[in-house]
């Protein structure tokens, strides 16, 4: 149920006027200032806003439970979110050797999406990220799950302070760990080992794993678990009838989130790799990004990396938002 009351006519009319004027201003800027083909994007957005204004006036004196301010807000949110994403796509679809100057991806060439998978630094970096972040995620989840259980249910001594320590590590500036991690790997003669890079990467993976797992355990229906136990269920039955239906999916989602969070870290990957072919994906893109000619590869690699996450977010959007939310 909405927390606000039914919008007044005055409120709807005010929102309609604002939407129309905003659209009118955008249409003028689009026609006068913005070069083609982006003019059409501005005009499209302007038309939507102006139509909102007109429709708002028409429905202002009806009993429909529609807030014109909210509709305007959603339209602006859509513009705010999607326009920069369109620019990422435009950057990725520019021809090699040229620079994109328009938001609209006209004359799109998709070669950068293929080049990412050709033998080269980006493909190697994707492999390194998969290996390093994947290994760190597995280890982090293996130790985070019992830790979260202890923090939630085992009344472990000083558990609140330990939880605060994990949360503090979550927001620790990871680049400060880069130099000592690199020095330690060098001292142990492991500087060229991609597997060894997973150990310092645990500084990124473990805190988020503990934090998210605690959130999952907090939301689980533990009274049901107590009831199952009181009924004399065996460990196997408890797993089958409580853990699998109520925890498994969320913990799987947490594992995916931990992996992508860990793989997105730039600083540790850039600091630890002594050679170019040992860099993680974000570190490689950081190095490539210094040259604007390589922006198309950076954008294409970013969109490839984004794709599985968008699929996960689409399938599990409700769980994901509630996990990150409250």
């Amino acid at each position, binding site marked *: 149920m909405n927390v606000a009351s039914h919008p007044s006519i005055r409120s709807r009319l005010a929102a309609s006027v604002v939407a129309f004027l905003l659209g009118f201003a955008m249409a003028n800027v689009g026609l006068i200032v913005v070069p083609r083909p982006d003019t059409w994007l501005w005009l499209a957005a302007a038309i939507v806003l102006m139509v909102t204004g007109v429709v708002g006036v028409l429905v202002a004196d009806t009993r429909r439970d529609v807030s014109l301010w909210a509709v305007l807000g959603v339209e602006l949110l859509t513009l705010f979110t999607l326009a*920069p994403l369109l620019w990422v796509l435009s950057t990725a679809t520019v021809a090699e050797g040229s620079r994109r100057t328009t938001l609209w991806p006209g004359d799109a060439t998709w070669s950068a999406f293929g080049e990412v998978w050709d033998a080269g630094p980006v493909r190697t970096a994707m492999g390194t990220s998969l290996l390093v972040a994947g290994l760190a995620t597995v280890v982090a989840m293996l130790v985070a799950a019992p830790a979260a259980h202890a923090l939630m249910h085992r009344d472990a001594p000083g558990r609140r302070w330990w939880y605060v320590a994990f949360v503090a590590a979550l927001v620790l500036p990871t680049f400060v760990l880069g130099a000592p991690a690199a020095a330690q790997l060098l001292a142990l003669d492991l500087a060229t080992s991609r597997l060894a890079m997973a150990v310092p990467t645990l500084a990124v993976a473990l805190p988020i794993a503990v934090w998210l797992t605690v959130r999952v355990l907090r939301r689980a229906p533990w009274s049901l678990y107590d009831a199952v136990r009181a009924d004399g269920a065996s460990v196997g039955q408890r797993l089958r009838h409580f853990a699998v239906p109520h925890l498994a999916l969320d913990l799987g989602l947490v594992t995916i989130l931990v992996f992508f969070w860990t793989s997105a870290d730039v600083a540790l990957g850039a600091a630890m790799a002594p050679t170019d072919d040992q860099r993680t994906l974000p570190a490689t893109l950081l190095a490539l990004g210094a040259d604007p000619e390589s922006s198309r590869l950076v954008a294409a690699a970013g969109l490839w990396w984004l794709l599985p996450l968008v699929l996960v977010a689409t399938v599990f959007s409700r769980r994901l938002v509630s996990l990150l939310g409250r």
Partner: protein
Amino acid sequence: MTARRSGLRRLGWLLPAVVVLVLVTVVPLGRVVWTSLHRSSPTTGSELVGLDNYTHLVASREWWLAVATSLVLVAGVVLVQLALGLVFGAALHRVGVVWPVARVVVLVPLVLLSVVSVVTWRDAVNGGFLTSWFDLGEAGPFAQLVAVTVGETWRGTGMVTAVVALSLAQVTASLSASAVADGATGLQRWRRVVLPSIGPAVAGVAAFRVLDTYRVLDGPLLTDDPSARLQTAPLLTWTTQFTALELGLGAAMSVLVVIGAAVLAAIVVPLFRVRRLL
């Protein structure tokens, strides 16, 4: 004896994670502190200098300018994110029919690799569409830094929006209805019913955004000009360690950055009353 053994057993579940945490964060931080007490570089070797690196930094105008730049960026980014997130979140809550799609869309910028966001936002003002729209001409490092800061704001706003929309959905309906029946104005309902309910979640995400923005490195790194006077504290720390190879001084900067993060946390946690969430 039994109680002690039981306490140890309870701690046993936590112990592996604690050991790993100590090994991968506390030990490296200890090493950073130790290095900061040395004048150290790969070419000249290492020499114990006590607190010299710190006294040098405390007296350094460049360092304090970098800290101030970082704090200004943090304040700007987080305030705009909060304002936009509250507006967009409230809008999404009212237009509930779009929520299933919107909750995916708002999270996409957040899950895009930050370095990709930085590169594309930098290019937008560096000969890209913003240059052609508004005839910006040659974009210097400052304009590029502003662009990547806007990009950072764009990345985090979706998270705040999602949290606000989700929190608003959990405001107790009967309480809200009672307030309406009592004749409370919109502002009164916002202050007395909505804000106390969404406050903890918004406070949590605000505190996270403050500390997350404070440590941003890739944006400043990709817009850096060695002659630029404006650098953030993370960037200055990074270039001191990995470009100038002044490891001792860079380690001292790292220690001060961590202390800065702790001070920020000590301010924002009580300010936003995040303790209720821990």
